[in-house]
């Protein structure tokens, strides 16, 4: 049983979702992985503003394969989230509603998840072909030179996720 969420409007519901709940999300989300996080951190440290508004948006740790002609995107499953742990608070300060990836994260992250009310969502690693069927469109919005590691805006429909760590710090891992 999955709950359906329009993440463009119901981001408060998203932030309040409980660990273990399956959601089918629809709306606009942004991809960013290692290199994009590193670059955002460098821009912020130089006092520059980030030209993408991440307020109440999901950051999806993902870098897709190149799309074929007529396809909205290539394969697009999650990458391991823990590599972005050092940047997590930075993205929370940008106002994001949630992060989406795969696998466990460092224990210290839970404090930030609670503090900023930014739950951690996971989806199915290695199901990139399957998940491509839940993406309606994609376009690069930042760091185009990074190729697959650029920030992309994705419009998803009934994209399956599971709340892995909720805003209270409850986790589905390790038990």
């Amino acid at each position: 049983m999955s709950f359906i969420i329009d993440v463009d409007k119901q981001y408060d519901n998203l932030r309040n979702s409980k660990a273990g709940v399956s959601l089918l999300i629809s709306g606009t989300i942004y991809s960013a992985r290692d290199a994009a996080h590193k670059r955002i951190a460098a821009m912020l440290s130089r006092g520059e503003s980030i030209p993408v508004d991440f307020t109440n948006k999901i950051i999806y740790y993902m870098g897709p394969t190149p799309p074929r002609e007529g396809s909205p995107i290539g394969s697009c499953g999650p990458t391991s989230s823990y590599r972005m742990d050092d940047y997590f608070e930075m993205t929370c300060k940008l106002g994001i509603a949630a992060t989406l990836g795969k696998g466990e994260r460092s224990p210290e992250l839970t404090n930030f998840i609670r503090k900023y009310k930014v739950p951690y969502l996971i989806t199915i690693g290695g199901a990139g072909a399957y998940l491509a069927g839940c993406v309606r469109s994609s376009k690069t919005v930042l760091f185009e030179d990074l190729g697959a590691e650029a920030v992309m805006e994705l419009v998803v429909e009934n994209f399956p996720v599971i709340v892995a760590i909720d805003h209270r710090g409850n986790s589905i891992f390790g038990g």
Partner: protein
Amino acid sequence: MRKIDTAEIGLLTKRLLIEANYVLSDDIKGAIDTAAVTETVPQSREILEVLRQNYIKAEEMVYPLCQDTGMAIVFIKIGQDVCLKGEYLLDVVNKGIASAYKEGYLRSSVVGHPLTRKNTGDNTPGVIYTEIAPGDKVEINVMPKGFGAENQSGLKMFTPSSDKKDIVDFIVNGINLSGGKGCPPGVLGVGIGGSFDYAALMAKKALLIPLNETNPDPILDDMEKMIMERTAALGVGPMGLGGRTTLLGVRMLAYPTHIAGLPVAYNYCCHSCRHKKGVL
């Protein structure tokens, strides 16, 4: 001497890499299918069913199995009665990799230097191993290796006083710490013996062995079963969400080693254990 033009090796490398990224081998598919029925945790069973649908969809050759289409690992066995003609072998193989990733719509995931990290744009260079074998054939095994899983690998130099249990403990502990990060249910390649580097190479080569073959070494066969049972009992399960399906299989290789040593390496591979063989 049988003459083979290296261009043929490049073309075969290209074809195998594209196929490996879209079509799982039957043993891996079978292991996923079985687990999708036998796994008892409902959410984990649903994930395994999605993985089944994923490989079926990938076979349409539109979307690769995974967005991490890997760094190209290429094993080339060259028969000693073969005379290679044409362009330098490794250049040709790298060209084969580049055209596979471009024409196969595969992701370029290689950076030119591990510290400056600029993407090379065509997924080259690959990691290419050559080996001289008897006969007059050239055998190529390709393995597009994703790094979410590669990062969960480990190596330890044991002392000769260590036993089977110490080694199994080390591996099981590693799998436990990895949890859901390497995309379980994974396939584990293990190399025991040789030297520091050779144990790691054996661990990678072990991933090429089909899951449904029995290990001819009874000691290794026993250890494979121990690792399967104990990692299942960890309850890591698909994506780390619980259940007994932590690994789809373990494959081990051993080699003679030094009187003072006992190197052990394990190479983690995700459930999308992609490899493909071709012979010229």
